[in-house]
């Protein structure tokens, strides 16, 4: 048991570490912005996801720099990165790896497992919705278990491990929508917005030159892992957790008191994994805001990207092209906060 002085020192250390985290985060963000124009919120959300040990699904029209963002990210974080360009003929082995026949050191022929691109800290899965469901399913274990099982043998993936997948919302031909089970494994789903005029001008200035900016490694993998562990210590008070739980329940149409729009247009709501994503993401947002305990605002900030891909619309919702973001906004408006009981 720590003495009070030890406790006090520890508290100060904790405080210092949180301050360091904010500083490093800001530096990371700045470094990334040297290569990526605009997208400040997007970069923050991606970094929050990274620090929360979550996988990210980036959705945007082609040419917005989704792939470049992941590449930049891997550079500044000093992480090894792999890339998978999904095509309809992509096989699971192309992602995970496969056994091949090779010569061992004695010169004898033997099977050895050739690791696939998944064996990197950061895996970029481009246009994931182009891969067949079979290949998509190969990522399920990878994303959840962080290891690959092949030929009865389990191969752990390097830590930290992130999957950053991209998908194009426009094309319907030749695409395979991700199943709900796989969607649920993504921590955040982030919309990559189309840049505004100023951003476009800046993009042109920066990216049409012959050379690309050289990016520095701001954080190594070990440091990243430490900060990931630090964020898990940020406390969440019970009323705040209850508020997050009410948000999750409000996405389910069968729950009593559900919003009328939810009841009408939603087939299935967010799972407990969504709750985890909200809490973990809220911790990161809390630390970034120099707070020492998660607040309702942090929960709301994390709720939007965490719930966006976890609310499954029914036929009526899809026919009416109901916006899930609008549903989430309605839920955030209607679900009472802890202060509402006293208001």
């Amino acid at each position, binding site marked *: 048991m720590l003495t009070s002085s030890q*406790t006090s020192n520890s*508290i100060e250390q904790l405080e210092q570490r949180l301050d360091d985290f904010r500083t490093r985060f800001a530096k990371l963000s700045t470094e990334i912005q040297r290569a990526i124009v605009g997208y400040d919120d997007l970069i923050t959300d991606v970094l929050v996801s990274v620090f929360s040990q979550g996988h990210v699904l980036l959705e945007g029209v082609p040419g917005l720099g989704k792939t470049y963002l992941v590449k930049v990210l891997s550079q500044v974080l000093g992480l090894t990165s792999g890339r998978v360009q999904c095509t309809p003929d992509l096989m699971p082995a192309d992602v995970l790896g496969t056994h091949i026949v090779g010569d061992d050191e004695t010169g004898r022929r033997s099977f050895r497992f050739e690791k696939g691109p998944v064996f990197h800290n950061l895996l970029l899965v481009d246009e994931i919705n182009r891969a067949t469901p079979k290949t998509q399913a190969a990522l399920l274990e990878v994303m959840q278990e962080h290891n690959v099982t092949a030929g009865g043998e389990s191969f752990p993936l390097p830590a930290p491990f992130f999957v950053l997948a991209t998908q194009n919302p426009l094309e319907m031909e030749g695409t395979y929508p991700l199943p709900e089970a796989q969607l649920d494994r993504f921590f955040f789903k982030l919309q990559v917005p189309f840049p505004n005029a100023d951003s476009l001008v800046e993009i042109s200035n920066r990216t049409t030159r012959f050379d690309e900016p050289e990016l520095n490694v701001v954080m190594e993998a070990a440091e990243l892992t430490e900060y990931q562990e630090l964020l898990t210590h940020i*406390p969440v008070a019970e009323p705040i957790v209850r508020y997050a739980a009410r948000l999750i329940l409000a996405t389910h149409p069968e729950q009593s008191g559900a919003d009328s729009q939810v009841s009408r247009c939603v087939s299935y709501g967010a799972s407990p994994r969504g709750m985890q994503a909200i809490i973990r993401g809220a911790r990161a947002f809390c630390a970034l805001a120099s707070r020492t305990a998660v607040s309702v605002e*942090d929960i709301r900030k994390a709720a939007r990207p965490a719930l966006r891909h976890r609310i499954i619309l029914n036929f009526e919702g899809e026919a009416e092209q109901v916006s899930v973001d609008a549903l989430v906004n309605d839920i955030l408006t209607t679900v009472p906060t802890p202060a509402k009981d006293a*208001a």
Partner: protein
Amino acid sequence: MNGSPFNDVARRAIQRISLARWFEALASSALVVFPLLAALALVGWLTNVSALRIGVWQGVAVVAGWIVLTGLWTRRRRPDAVSALALWDERTGRDEVFTSALCFESLPEPGLAEQLHLRRATQQLAAAEPQLKQDLPAPLRYQAWLLPIAVLVLVAVIPAQPASTGEQIVDQAERERALEASEELARQAELDHIETAGLDEEEKDKLKELEDALKESTERLKELEEGESARDVLSELEAMAHEAEKLSEALEGDSEGLSSEMIAELERHADTTDFGSALRSEDLGDVADEAEAIEDRLKDKELSREEEERMEESLRKAMKKADQNDKQTLAGKELEEALQRLTKDQPKQAAKNFENIARNALQKQQRQLAQQQLKQLAQQLRKAGQQIFQNKQGNGGQGIQKLAQLKAQGLKPLQAGQQVQIAMPNGQRGQNQGMPVALGQPQPGNQKPGAMIPVPGQPGQGQPQGVVPGTGQGQTPVPGAGGAPVPGSGGSPVPGSGGAPVPGSGGAPGAGAGVGGLQAGTGSAGYGNTATKAMEAKKQGTVQGVMNSDGESMVREIDPSAHREEAGRDYQQRVAELLRLEEEALADEPLPASRRLQVLQYLTTLRRQLVDQQPDE
């Protein structure tokens, strides 16, 4: 960390929030409660319904109850500590710092991160706590205090003002007089003094009911509340008086007097002289005594045959003089039966007949006494009303009299001595002919003078007294008395009526031209050859005079131009109707039969002369 500072501040936050909610509840409920209360108070004042009247103390009680109830409701819905601090955090943009601190404070072993948060939150609390009241204001909106005060003032003011309907409210002096009157009436309420020997069971029950009602009213008079209306009290007293009068009228029996010829015959014989005299004097006590005397004589063992035969002879001759009516009366039947028994030589049985006559006379006497006592009671009740409200105008002091007058001014009964004026058409058609005849009321202007026909009988006595307005005479004609003035005819008496006035017989202004001018025809016209331009009627109308218990109907027009009016019914119809009404009213008058017959004959003569007579053109 010592103590639980966040718990303490949470309690304070709860108090502030509860206070704010209570004030809000007061303000929002005041907008409903007090307009309703004010409306009730106004309705109670306007309609004078005592159940809706709200006094100051009731108003204060409502305000106190409203405050308490809203307080209880607010207390029931007070927030918990977490919600209270969360609201405070939200209002100040603190992002649930204190809310989380409250939760971490209660942890048995807070971790380092929780302790870090508590440390920071405690530093913030020191600066934030003094701002608690400012951050959680509890404003008292003006509706919460202004409306109750306004309504209290309203209910305090209202009883001081008379009700808008013109009802007059009992004041303190009247309450005192009511108390005095109630003491007097309490003595009267014991109706033991009323003779009940002659009453049957049903009449005794009615008397008992009257007694109970009287006692109740007496009690009510004692507890007369300030603010009650005079009308309620007067109405109650009048109702009691009316009940007493009704009972009195019910006790009135048929006057079954024997004809004067029969009585004269009884008087002619020595054995029945006193009995006959008693019958003629209509003194029931004497009748009973004399009948008992005859009964004793007939029962006497020493009654001689001669006496018996003399009695028989007296009765026989008396029965010969009896007419059909006499034989229908109880006395006539008993005398006839006594005669038959005496004829059969049964004096003792005949004595029983005289016993019956005596008993019946006694019973009647008792009923008469009870009747008079009830009438007196009615008068005393009315007098009590006058005594209580002696200063009141309008419906007050004269209220109960007016109530009685209103009843009296119905078709029946007419009061003896009341003057009746009949319009006399003096050959001038179009001049307000056909105006309804007022019963004892002055007629509007321009009415042709008419004769005053007195109602026979003195008020309560049968002898008319009164002034014939317009003539300066101090005495109305008395049927059978002779010498009455006859308008237009110089005072010639009407045959059979003893000089009743004959209206309209000479065309001259008749007596009693009290309405429409004392004298007619006093205008002057200039001399000359120029013919008076005939007036052309600009307007024609028919006036239907209607008379009912509410009084006469009137038509009043203001028209600058000359107009012609024609009566909807002619003079004869009007007079015939009047006479009919008088005859019907006569039936209810407590007149002896002989007098009633006399008046009927008088009215019959009038009818013959007035209805059958052609009107003068």
